[in-house]
């Protein structure tokens, strides 16, 4: 039995008998909780809607609703009269002292069974999303299994409830207080993935030889949330993803795990699985000269340009081809003098290169650029 079920009592007060305690003539059996909905579409607040059949007397009826040990926002509690919306009226709501409870004062034009829907915001019940993604041995595709973890620490037992998210289909599930349930929510097979190695010059060491440990190049899988791959129906919720790989021997290895943010339709889910030590990037500043120097009357430099050359070497020690995303940063105002590779601007100060490197091969190039109007 749910706690709230225990706590919902209906008291009838005969309208005409009004002198004293004897006016409370009848205390009826507790109504059963019918259709219950737990709506988890708002990540911060869970809305519960439950229907109950009240046996109303003609005249005034008092209905106690209490939630001891359950965190309900009292201002959020609503009651909707479903069977006789014009003949049954909510007169007032009273809150007793020192209790988590309220008393609905309901007036009914007749004696009948009335279905009401009670809704409230309930704290302590929420959902998490987890992903489990086995990858093919060649890392070309993966299966994305999305699990819903339902945690109920609300103080309230739900024997059976329809659980609704803004994600996939609703389902029926009972969940008791302090119970956690994990269920497979959706499974998308053979989603094409792109394996991306990323070297960001702002965060990784430029010369691996000068560093005592190996420099790992972060590796991510990218999965597009779009219809052409079989997704794209809704945004993918944020959650933890564990990635496995088929080892070719009928088993799997665990590749790593990452936390993905919410991925709207059309965007890519990027899962960082770990660092590669088989791709090595070395870059060196080969020139940095000041040009076009402007001085003031005291011969102090007030403005200058620079002329800079960066040399970049990417080595692939793997026996498979790889594509490296290389991010270079040039602050302020700048111009490229010469660069043999195509790039895209991530923003005004970040240049993004996509550089394919064949298996057991290397790529080398230089980037010649000038920074303009630099002030000391």
């Amino acid at each position: 039995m749910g706690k709230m079920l225990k706590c919902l009592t209906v008291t009838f007060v005969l309208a005409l008998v009004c002198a004293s305690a004897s006016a409370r003539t009848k205390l009826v059996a507790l109504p059963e909780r019918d259709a219950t909905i737990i709506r988890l579409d708002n990540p911060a607040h869970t809305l519960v809607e439950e229907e109950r059949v009240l046996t109303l007397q003609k005249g005034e009826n008092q209905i106690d609703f209490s939630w001891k040990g359950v965190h309900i926002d009292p201002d959020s509690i609503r009651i909707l009269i479903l069977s006789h919306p014009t003949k049954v009226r909510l007169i007032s709501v009273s809150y007793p002292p020192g209790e988590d409870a309220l008393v609905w004062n309901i007036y009914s034009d007749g004696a009948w069974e009335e279905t009401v829907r009670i809704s409230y915001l309930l704290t302590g019940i929420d959902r998490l999303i987890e992903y489990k993604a086995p990858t093919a041995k060649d890392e070309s595709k993966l299966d994305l299994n999305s699990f819903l973890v339902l945690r109920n620490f609300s103080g309230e037992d739900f024997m059976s409830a329809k659980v609704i998210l803004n994600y996939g289909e609703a389902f029926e599930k009972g969940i008791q207080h302090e119970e956690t349930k994990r269920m497979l929510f959706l499974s998308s097979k053979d989603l094409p993935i792109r394996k991306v190695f990323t070297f960001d010059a702002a965060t990784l060491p430029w010369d691996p030889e000068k560093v005592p440990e190996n420099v790992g190049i972060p590796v991510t899988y990218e999965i597009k949330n779009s219809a052409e791959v079989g997704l794209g129906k809704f945004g993918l919720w944020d959650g933890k993803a564990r990635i496995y790989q088929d080892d070719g021997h009928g088993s799997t290895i665990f590749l790593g795990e990452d936390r993905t943010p919410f991925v709207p339709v059309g965007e890519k889910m990027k899962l960082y699985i770990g660092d590669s030590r088989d791709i090595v990037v070395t870059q060196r500043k080969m020139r940095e000269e000041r040009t076009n120097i402007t001085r003031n009357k005291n011969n102090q430099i007030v403005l200058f340009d620079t002329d800079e050359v960066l040399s970049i070497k990417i080595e692939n020690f793997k026996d498979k081809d790889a594509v490296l995303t290389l991010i270079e940063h040039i602050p302020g105002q700048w111009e490229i003098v010469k660069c043999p590779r195509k790039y895209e601007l991530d923003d005004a100060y970040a240049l993004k290169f996509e550089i394919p490197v064949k298996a057991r091969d290397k790529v080398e190039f230089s980037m010649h650029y000038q920074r303009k109007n630099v002030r000391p």
Partner: protein
Amino acid sequence: MRHSVLNRILAVTVVCLAVASPALAKVDLVTLPAGKRIQLTIYNSADLTLARDLRELTMKKGENVLQFSWAGTLIDPTSLDMMPKRFGDKIDIFDITYPPRVRNLGLWNIRSGVSGSVPVEITYFTSGLSWRAFYLGTLSNDEKVMDLEGYVRVSNQSGEDYPDAETRLIVGKIHILDQIAELAQREFPYGRPFPPEILARPAAVPTEELAVRRERAREAVGLVAAAKPKEIKKEGLSEYFLYTIEGTETIADGWSKRLPSFKTRGVPVTNLYKYEEDRYGENVVRFLSFKNDKEHKLGDTPIPDGVIKVFRTVDEQAHLSYTGQAGFKYIPVDEDVELNLGAAPDVRVKPKLMKYATANYAFDRKGNIDGLDEITTFKVEVENFRDIPVRVEVTRNFPNQYFELEKSGDLGKFEKVDMDTVKFTLDLKPNSKREFEYTHTQYHGTRQDRSASRS
């Protein structure tokens, strides 16, 4: 049997004149008749309630002493007043005395020209009663209209039950010098020439007594059988609005009551998503706006400040989804209302600096830089991940008024908000994206003169 409030608070006793020493003269006690009518006017901007109690007192011709006591209450003794409602010209109220070494007691000295029953009205301030407004909003599925329900919640923590009281609520900001709760707890009504001692509030009610009180109040709730919710009459008085609850209300100590204040169906609302880094950071914030006027099916009275919880109807069976909540300030008639429902993850605005340059350096006589132009190009992506159309306002703030702006792309409606703020308003279809660019030239130092002289 429940105490009537004044039976306990104001033990009004008429003491015979013949006895000279009034404080000790508890002779010839007259049974206090039940109160005829009690009216409560509860303020929400201060912990203050004006109570007005109408009584029939039996007086003797000549001098009468009326003894009042208010132990265990939160009454301000300095506010106690009494007014005869009949025989006004025949009854003189000399004074009220707060006798020494007796706490929570006052003696009224009255000379009566009549013998018999005299109706009097006793007024006083008390603390511990309060009210607040709150609201429930239910959006239609397309979010174009909202059903707006206003409620008032009246709470009684005064230590006393108020049965069958005419209840009135004041909307407005009152100026008071002293806290009524503090005045109520002074050892001496007007203090003494050095700082008063503040005494503790009345002791908390033991739990077992709560159950008894609950039963008592339930009886009281049952006293009035109403077939429909009570109406709340609203009228303007000076700078206040007065809400009068139809009939009488019983508000037992410790209880509070929620009463419907108004319900308006189908208020047209505008959904607006705003992006302004200076105010909201990197989040897009969702707003719901309407106006307190006839066009929006409102506008009869101001709307008291409060918190609104907004839901959305998701299907034909009127199932709900929770959207969010917002607090709002007092809304005068004809004023716009803008409810801030918080960060919206399903609408995204991403302004990105794509190019930075400086130009037109100016130098002073010493050869130092004293002016330049800073030219930045931003690309702004606006995305709607919702399945309904939305309107998005992208506001950009610049350091000062010395700038020029070139715009391109799908930028919607452009507006200069003030000298250093501009706004782009875009309507987005469900699940769609729009993108625009602007190049902003900011003039610094002596280059500002150039910009100023040009305009």
